[in-house]
């Protein structure tokens, strides 16, 4: 159990030791049950601003539930979520987005009734005039800002490697491109914290490496990233810190090396030694 030493430290102390920013996201005694089944139980951890922080765990560990709790899609049964120091437990996703939190989805959530560019432009929602009357009468200031949003969306698409799909209908794009389209859409909202739910799932090795680069670039621009991912090569390669979950509870936390060497983590993934 010596290996667990780092997790015995409170996340705050860990963060201080690494001289990184204050926690942008803190989860305190968070729990959520579905009809008596505990999906997340008494989970506490913190994510330091500027980090790429991965959440790993076997299937059913509660990773996506955790994402849904943090982003307001589900309401917690207990505990709280602090974003930028404020209690945001159970706050509606659109309010969290206004505070600077966005995410992508494990199962694609694309607006298939729109073009790829329009998908990303929806991401600019918070930065545009979304009132009814100016829209109905197409006031010049709205049109001008909309044109800027369009240019910006096109630039974001190019940034994530989707330059050739700018004029495409979302419904006509391949799976790997749609994964990146979700990232571009989330980035368009200019989040401080971006949660990526299995961005590499279903991608081939080349595409995974490209996503890798995209995530690193985004992180380098100052966006804190929370990553749920099964691709361990990716997780180990790009994460600053990793939190391992099992059956809704904290299993281990630390640097990639620490977590990879943790016997509990190994046991959870490969089955416990008899």
């Amino acid at each position: 159990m010596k290996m667990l030493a780092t997790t015995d430290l409170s996340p705050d102390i860990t963060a201080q030791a690494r001289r990184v920013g204050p926690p942008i996201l803190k989860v305190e005694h968070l729990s959520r049950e579905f009809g008596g089944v505990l999906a997340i139980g008494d989970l506490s951890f913190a994510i330091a601003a500027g980090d790429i922080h991965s959440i790993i765990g076997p299937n059913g560990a509660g990773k996506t539930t955790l994402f849904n709790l943090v982003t307001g899609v589900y309401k917690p049964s207990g505990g709280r979520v602090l974003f930028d120091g404020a209690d945001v437990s159970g706050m509606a996703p659109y309010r969290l987005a206004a505070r600077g939190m966005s995410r992508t989805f494990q199962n694609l959530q694309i607006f298939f009734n729109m073009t790829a560019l329009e998908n990303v432009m929806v991401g600019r929602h918070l930065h545009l005039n979304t009132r009814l009357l100016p829209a109905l009468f197409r006031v010049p200031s709205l049109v001008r800002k909309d044109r800027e949003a369009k240019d910006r969306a096109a630039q974001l698409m190019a940034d994530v490697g989707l330059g050739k799909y700018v004029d495409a209908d979302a419904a006509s794009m391949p799976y790997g491109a749609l994964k990146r389209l979700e990232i571009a859409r989330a980035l368009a909202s200019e989040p401080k914290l971006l949660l990526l739910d299995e961005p590499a799932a279903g991608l081939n090795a080349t595409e995974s490496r490209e996503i890798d680069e995209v995530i690193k670039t985004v992180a380098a621009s100052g966006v804190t990233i929370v990553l749920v991912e099964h691709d361990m090569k990716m997780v180990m390669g790009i994460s600053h810190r990793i939190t391992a979950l099992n059956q809704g509870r904290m299993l281990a936390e630390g640097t990639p090396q620490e977590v990879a060497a943790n016997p509990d983590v190994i046991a959870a993934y490969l089955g416990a030694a008899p």
Partner: protein
Amino acid sequence: MNALLHGRLTGLLALGAVIAVLPAFLPNNFYLDIAILAGFNAVVCVGLNLLIGYAGQISLGHAGFFGIGAYASGVLVGTYGWPPIVALLAGAVFVGLLAFLVAKPILRLKGHYLAMATLGIGIIVSIVLRTESGLTGGPDGMMVEPFKIFGVELYGEKVWYWVVGVLLVGVVWLSLNLIDSPMGRALRAVHGSEVAAEVVGVDTARFKVMVFVLSAVFASVAGSLFAHYAGLITPAKADFFKSIELVTMVVFGGMASTFGAVVGAVVLTLLPQALTIFQDYQQIVLGGILMATMVFMPKGLLPTLAALLPARRRA
């Protein structure tokens, strides 16, 4: 961007041109009357399409809003002597408030609750219109005064044709503007994926309420003007089957296509005139059209045809 702007203006100009030259081909007032009815239906359908086609919500009570507008004008002008334009605006404000009060609690929920609630409203409106005979004239309906504004009385098919034509072009213009705006994209995003819209900051409930209110107000304005044009209104104009007819027009013409809604309204207004069987079996024929559309061209007439055209050109 240019192509988009171009496309929008082209469509609007084409619609204006059709409206402008159509009277030359209509031999008498009977045909003008049908064109006017098609125009009124088209105005309602363009608004309904914003709700159904773009935002993905269903209303089974839009004839109720049309009816409230119509009776607001009939009663306020005829019984209370209000100026018609004021009565029209009052009806629109009332319908807007009613739609807001209904939608506000309902649209926080996901799923088809709005369809249920609007179904209820439509039926209630229709019952009230039938039974409050002191005010509404009951099942026989009521006479409505002509529309007067600035001392000018709008009278006759020739005048009303242009009134409705201008109204339709205006409503289509507003609709096209809205769809190609941040709010319009938010509406379409609600249809595409509510959760994805939320996580980039779209208050989905708010936008659903707004588009519902807007489409109800369009219906009310159309209803008010229709009442003045027709001179006689009956509760049948507000009943459930009329609501279904409106939904069928939108679905048949093409969901998420403003011009599709216009085409759907025009075709399904003409059909009963062309086919007498329609008169006797209206509900069955409408149901059949609705089902056939869903099965054979789920995108609706205009988008399906539009998808065929470039393919032919390439071939």
